[in-house]
């Protein structure tokens, strides 16, 4: 019993110290830690480990329901009639659907061309929303106009019999960068290669006036051949075509640019910021801006400097770290001037 209460007192002491350290800007945390620990080497080591653990990604950051297995057995007896359904007189649904972004994606066989495709549907609860429907069509046309190895292609679009609207896309074998990050920081060469390919795909889109606005690890798939495909231009809009209603803030908060969190007008520079966040996370395994709630994350994005990459990972080259930090400049005009320029910098001298 006394052992437990000793442990309890120790943790209380560490808790108080850690709380004091964490609330400081990251540049001052080291000094504070040193002054609190003083000559107590054990406490110092424990606090340093806790501080690193605080800055690292945690399983607790994802919703608990992510651990659920979604299988036919767990869904109970009343199975949907998706499988084997023929969509648009051409696509036979092969596999269970998965939700994603603003739509739903199923694996299907294109019976006309005898190839496997992914069909993305506009979610039924958005179906009656004319704005969402129009957004979906604009997205499809915008991506179809692109022909770039790092942007997911569009084959076709159409209406299913029950008024669902869909686009067909290649079915890629591989995994998302989100899945890779979940296993820990990436090898530096891989992180640079994925960032470079993403920047090239973005540059091609930007050249046609298409801004992605939702660049995040879950939207970047790496095929088994190591090729990055940017997925889900679900919130993309044509530049100058003001389709986004005021105050509408699509995207995932952690990857949003400061101007996006404030629902201001965004330009191609917003994608550069988001890629900067993805790069930071690929290199360190941790998100640069965090908070217990969306509002706190947004505050961190707008006001806080992320912890230096070199503090989290010693082997990241200085030039690469500077490039990531440039992309994370709060002022859009301070970021690399274009995705093309960012790609050139990543290619090296």
């Amino acid at each position, binding site marked *: 019993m006394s052992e437990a209460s000793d442990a309890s007192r120790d943790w209380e002491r560490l808790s108080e110290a850690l709380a004091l350290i964490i609330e400081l800007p990251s540049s001052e945390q080291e000094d504070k830690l040193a002054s609190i620990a003083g000559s107590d080497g054990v406490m110092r080591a424990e606090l340093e480990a*806790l*501080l690193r653990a605080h800055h690292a990604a945690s*399983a607790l950051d994802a*919703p608990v329901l992510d*651990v659920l297995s979604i299988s036919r057995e767990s869904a109970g007896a009343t199975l949907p009639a998706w499988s084997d359904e023929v969509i648009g007189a051409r696509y036979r649904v092969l596999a269970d659907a998965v*939700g994603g972004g*603003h739509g739903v994606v199923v694996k299907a066989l294109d019976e006309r061309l005898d190839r496997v495709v992914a069909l993305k549907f506009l979610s039924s609860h958005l179906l009656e929303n004319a704005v969402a429907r129009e957004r979906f069509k604009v997205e499809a046309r915008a991506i179809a106009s692109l022909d770039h190895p790092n942007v997911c292609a569009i084959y076709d679009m159409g209406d299913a019999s029950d008024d669902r609207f869909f686009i067909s896309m290649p079915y890629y074998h591989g995994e998302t960068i989100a899945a890779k990050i979940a296993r820990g920081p990436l090898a530096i060469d891989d992180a640079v290669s994925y960032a470079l390919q993403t920047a090239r795909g973005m540059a091609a889109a930007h050249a046609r006036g298409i801004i992605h606005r939702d660049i995040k690890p879950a939207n970047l798939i790496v095929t088994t051949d190591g090729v990055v495909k940017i997925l889900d231009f679900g919130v993309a809009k044509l530049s100058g075509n003001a389709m986004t209603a005021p105050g509408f803030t699509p995207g995932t908060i952690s990857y949003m640019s400061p101007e996006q969190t404030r629902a201001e007008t965004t330009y191609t520079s917003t994608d550069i910021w988001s890629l900067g966040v993805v790069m930071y996370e690929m290199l360190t395994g941790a998100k640069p801006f965090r908070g217990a709630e969306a509002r706190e994350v947004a505050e961190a994005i707008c006001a806080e400097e992320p912890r230096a990459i070199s503090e989290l990972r010693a082997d990241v080259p200085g030039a690469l770290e500077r490039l990531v930090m440039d992309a994370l400049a709060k002022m859009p005009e301070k970021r690399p001037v274009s995705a093309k320029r960012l790609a050139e910098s990543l290619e090296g001298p």
Partner: protein
Amino acid sequence: MADTLEQPGPKAGATTKGQGSRAAIDAILPAIYDELRRIAHFRLRAEQTGHTLETTGLVHEAYIRLAGSERLEFESRAHFLAIAAQAMRHILIDSALTRRTQKRGGGLRPLTIDDLPIVAETRSEELIALDEALVRLSVINERQAKVVECRYFGGMNIDDTALALGISTATVKRDWMLARAWLNLELRK
């Protein structure tokens, strides 16, 4: 292994007020289970997008269904939420432990409600490790462990967690941050 569920973590708590809490958890298990199944069903039908899959939504659905129920009485919505977080933890850990038993080829341990494979096989070990670490945390700081239970297993936001545990939002934030760091470290040992 099933003993994990009988340890102090899920049982004790600021708002469960000792006796009757076990009965309260047992009473809402079926409703939470039904909601989990419904969510699995919707995911498979894939007619819904992310927001329906959040724990908060699930717990609120269960609350709406049970709020008018005569067999249950909760002091408040906050009280219900705290119980629901424990119930979620109970169901998920139970499911993960069943996965482990099955994998080791042991005899099938009967599940509390029915036989649904709720937790993905690939995630069950990490969930069990988290639960065990949370039990250890509750020994050195019970309140911090309760905060994690509410926020992670119950999907509750900071305000609701503060209400459920009868503490300030500042304390919830601080406890969450500290517990998160502690668990991160503990799970890497």
